[in-house]
């Protein structure tokens, strides 16, 4: 039988009201909220070391400054998510420094090294656009008041990252020659990796607790379509080819989805379709930079703790 709290909670949620305190939540809602916040915090946090490797290859001092400013934003956005988790009873320090690298919940794409300024520009235009769609949807739909309000400024700052990515992609494409060829070959591996970011297609995902709890408002496919509707026309407008086209109201992929990815060589094999179970297995195993990136920021924490203890 439903408890009084459950009945009150269901009524609040179906009215479209905001949840403000833990005393209003059911244990299941609290668990799903924490999971969603952890994915968000981990994604923002890990984007910092992922972007930093490439930011060091900036082609000018000003560009380097922009890259570093974006990284600073991402760390601040991570902090917002972890801070809310603290208020929900988690320990930010433990979450960041005492978890096993493989238990971090962020998109697989960040595990594949970004090694040049061109790759960072594409990441700002594609990965940050994916973040923009996901967070924009949460901002719009989110039933948890403190997070919804925290996202107002996050969205404003993400706009700046998109602008950096798009203006550099445009500049590099305009430069032509080898620079443009490099841009195209990087888009070739980064575009499908971001398409995959949005997860299982709706036809395979029958039930979403996040949708039920209004922790998001759009389905995976709706979010993927939103992303495609921005990225495909943009790439076409600057003369960069992407394997997708518009058909009626929707965007259609020109390759089997999903298919096999070779992370070491940053190469997709469009002639080798695979199952979503294969993709989920690849995600769970994590990619090339996972352990290294997590170890990078956990190392000093452990050193300091060891000194304190001795």
């Amino acid at each position: 039988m439903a408890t009084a709290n459950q009945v009150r909670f269901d009524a609040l949620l179906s009215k479209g009201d905001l949840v403000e305190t833990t005393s209003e939540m059911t244990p299941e809602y609290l668990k799903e909220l924490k999971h969603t916040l952890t994915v968000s915090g981990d994604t923002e946090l890990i984007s910092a070391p992922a972007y930093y490797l490439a930011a060091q290859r900036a082609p000018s001092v000003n560009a380097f400054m922009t890259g570093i400013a974006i990284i600073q934003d991402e760390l601040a956005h991570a902090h917002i998510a972890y801070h809310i988790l603290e208020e929900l009873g988690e320990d930010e320090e433990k979450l960041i420094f005492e978890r096993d690298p493989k238990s971090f919940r962020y998109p697989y794409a960040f595990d594949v090294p970004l090694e040049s300024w061109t790759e960072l520009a594409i990441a700002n235009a594609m990965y940050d656009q994916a973040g923009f769609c996901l967070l924009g949807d949460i901002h719009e739909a989110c039933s948890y008041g403190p997070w919804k309000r925290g996202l107002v400024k996050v969205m404003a700052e993400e706009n700046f990252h998109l602008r950096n990515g798009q203006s550099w992609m445009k500049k590099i494409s305009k430069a032509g020659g080898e620079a443009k060829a490099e841009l195209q070959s990087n888009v070739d591996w980064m575009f499908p990796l971001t398409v995959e970011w949005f997860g299982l297609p709706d036809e395979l995902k029958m039930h979403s607790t996040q949708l039920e709890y209004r922790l998001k408002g759009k389905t995976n496919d709706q979010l993927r379509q939103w992303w495609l509707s921005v990225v495909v026309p943009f790439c076409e407008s600057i003369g960069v080819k992407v394997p997708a086209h518009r058909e009626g109201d929707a965007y259609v992929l020109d390759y089997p989805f999903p298919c096999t990815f070779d992370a070491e060589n940053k190469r997709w094999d469009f002639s080798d379709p695979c199952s979503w179970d294969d993709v989920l297995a690849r995600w769970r195993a994590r990619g090339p930079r996972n352990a290294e990136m997590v170890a990078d920021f956990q190392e000093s924490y452990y050193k300091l703790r060891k000194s304190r203890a001795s």
Partner: protein
Amino acid sequence: MTGSLEERCWAALAEVQDPEMPINLVDLGLIYRIQVAGSHVSVDLTFTAMGCPAYEMILDDVRERLLAEPGVDQVLVKVVWDPPWSSAMLTPEGREALEMWGLAV
């Protein structure tokens, strides 16, 4: 087209938004001086901080917008640091825009 070219250039830069905040460059107080000689326009402009992450974007936007103005075919942008920018450079409209956005100025 009404007004002198200099007036139109000020109005044009009031259409250019700061890439990080919902405020235009004129209301933010970044534009110190605009001089017009024939079809050549030169602009003295500053930034809120020397480490402005949007440095190149703002310079690109200023050039692009002024070149789109009829009668302008050359734009020279000079970055100046004296006097240093402070919140006193905001116009009353700019102050209001930043306060609405949640920034105490």
